[in-house]
């Protein structure tokens, strides 16, 4: 049974359509991340699921029950907010038990639930404090505690980590993921940070302009982005995309970057049968930075000699763990991710190995993935 089903959901404000026919099915126990740039409609979608906003059209089912007309408190959900939305005038204890108080849960039961959650999140020492006396990470925990104590069918997270500093964000990310693994809850998590999406999700829904662009597990989203938007949005640095031309000779399809230039790059593709109809046409070529590496790299699982190109180096960014190189492929800019101890000199040329198995081709008109 799907924990959450969204059917043909749309939302209009006056003359602005912010959600255009969303369909999503989320299974029980899944950790779904809604990711997209700001203004893509992901937070609106979450608010509609929570019952804090109304859909203009479509239905929402939680646990098999249509909840369009059910007020938020009766939807069996819990929510963690970006600003945490801790009640400033209440102590941590009161913040966590407020929902139970509203539902009229017996005092003893409230205490038991509170104790469990406090232990789980290790916030026992904070229970008597006011939110203003807590650090950012502590507030975040309390906000989660307030959600956890409800033991709901569905957890909703609205960019809960965006107010934390980088180090704390990584810690909390792991903690949330661990928590999910431990309690097996169903989570819908909204973020604009694709790393959070990649690291935590069991499935990612990438949203853009009120439409779900792709809804799949993280690997699929990463390796086979459904369109150019997803390709450029996911990954850091993002996928290199460049205009190219698909040609074919007797041995199969060849993609040419900077066709006709003296430094044109010709890459022979294997297993790209779906692209056959594009032969002789322009396409957009996508290649992840990690698929362009120093010349002596051997890509795992590769058979035969690697495909090598020589390209001018424009800029070198060592990050410590790796070196990012900005280079030109057939005149088009591209980023490569090479070993940290290799530092090519800008202004010279160097040779790079390409993992052409993971090249994506997109239709330049529809921007959809071809192969």
């Amino acid at each position: 049974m799907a924990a959450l089903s969204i059917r043909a959901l749309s939302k209009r404000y006056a003359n602005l359509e912010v959600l255009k026919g969303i369909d999503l099915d989320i299974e029980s126990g899944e950790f779904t991340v809604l990711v997209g740039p700001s203004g893509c409609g992901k937070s609106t979608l979450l608010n509609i699921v929570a019952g804090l906003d109304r859909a203009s059209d479509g239905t929402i089912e939680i646990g098999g029950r249509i909840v369009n007309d059910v007020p938020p408190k009766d939807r069996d959900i819990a929510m963690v907010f970006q600003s945490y939305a801790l009640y400033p005038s209440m102590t941590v204890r009161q913040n966590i038990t407020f929902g139970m108080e509203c539902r009229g849960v017996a005092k003893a039961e409230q205490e038991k639930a509170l104790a469990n959650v406090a232990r789980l999140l290790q916030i026992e020492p904070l229970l008597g404090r006011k939110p203003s006396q807590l650090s950012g990470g502590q507030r975040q925990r309390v906000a989660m505690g307030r959600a956890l104590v409800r033991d709901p069918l569905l957890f909703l997270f609205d960019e809960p980590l965006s107010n934390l500093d980088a180090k704390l964000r990584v810690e909390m990310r792991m903690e949330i993921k661990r928590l999910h693994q431990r309690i097996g809850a169903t989570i819908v998590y909204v973020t604009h940070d694709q790393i959070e999406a990649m690291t935590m999700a069991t499935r990612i829904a990438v949203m853009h302009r009120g439409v779900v662009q792709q809804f799949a597990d993280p690997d699929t989203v990463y390796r086979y982005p459904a369109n150019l938007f997803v390709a450029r949005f996911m990954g850091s640095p993002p996928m290199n995309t460049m205009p190219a031309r698909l040609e074919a000779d007797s041995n199969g399809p060849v993609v040419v970057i900077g066709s006709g230039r003296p430094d044109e790059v010709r890459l022979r593709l294997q297993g790209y049968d779906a692209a056959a109809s594009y032969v002789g046409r322009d396409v957009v070529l996508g290649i992840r930075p990690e698929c362009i590496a120093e010349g002596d790299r051997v890509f795992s699982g590769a058979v035969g000699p690697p495909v090598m190109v020589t390209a001018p180096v424009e800029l070198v960014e060592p990050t410590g763990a790796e070196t990012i190189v900005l280079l030109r492929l057939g005149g088009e800019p591209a980023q490569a991710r090479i070993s940290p101890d290799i530092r090519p000199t800008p202004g010279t040329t160097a040779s790079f190995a390409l993992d052409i198995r993971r090249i994506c081709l997109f239709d330049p008109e529809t921007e959809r993935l071809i192969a």
Partner: protein
Amino acid sequence: MRDRSFTPSRALIYLIVTLFAAAYLAPLVVVVLNSLRTNEEIAQSSMIGWPQNWAFGNYAMAWSGFCVAETCAGIRPYMLNSALITIPATIFSTLLGAVAGYAVSLWRFRGDNWIYGIVTLGLFLPQQMRLLPWTIVLRDIGLINTLSGLVLIHTIQGLSFTVLFCRNYYVAIPHELIRAARIDGAGFFRIFWRIILPLSAPILIVTVIWQFTHIWNEFLYGVTFTTGQQQPVTAALIALSTPVADIPKQGVQSAAVIIAALPTLLIYLFGGRYFVRGLTAGAVK
């Protein structure tokens, strides 16, 4: 610019501030001094002067001595009347204004902007214009010559101010707080009572101070809609200050002014700090 070292320019700042403070205090000082001078002494010299014979009797006279026609009880009974009008009207207009401001700012509903706009326009509608309509309204609901009638007037008229300031204050409260509470299952009133009200101290102080001083100092409605022993303290003050058939009693009058202004002055003295804070939160939106 904001250092604390003592320089000629800082000396100048202190000088200017002191001069201003003196000018602002001067009227109060004059009234206090006059409240300690006899009427004769004031008449013989001028309004500004140091008391020659300390006339503390002025205060006894003002508090419980002087006569308004048959009633020779000073301003004491009228102080009580003013309190009976001012305190309930302040509480009602503040609470209703807070609830309405909360509703308008955090729970949008159809027509909210319109009604909010009209209500705040009330700040600008001249008082004199409303006197006769209120007469007719009070007559029709049977509240003329009752303190309840005045409480009603001040409550309804006060809403213009309280709704405006509370609303402006509440729009700064994060909406997520309300959303979280709704998911927790709290309704309109519980959210107001448990979450909004505890955050409202600064703005409630502003509205309470504002309403209290305005209602306490009001005269026109006070004398028109009450009778005899119910009149507010401003009426008793006027009885002292516009003598048609009497020599001016500026000594007693000054003492009465001080006593009558004491509640509002104390409110400003103790609430002034919060007033500034809340005023800003409420006004600049």
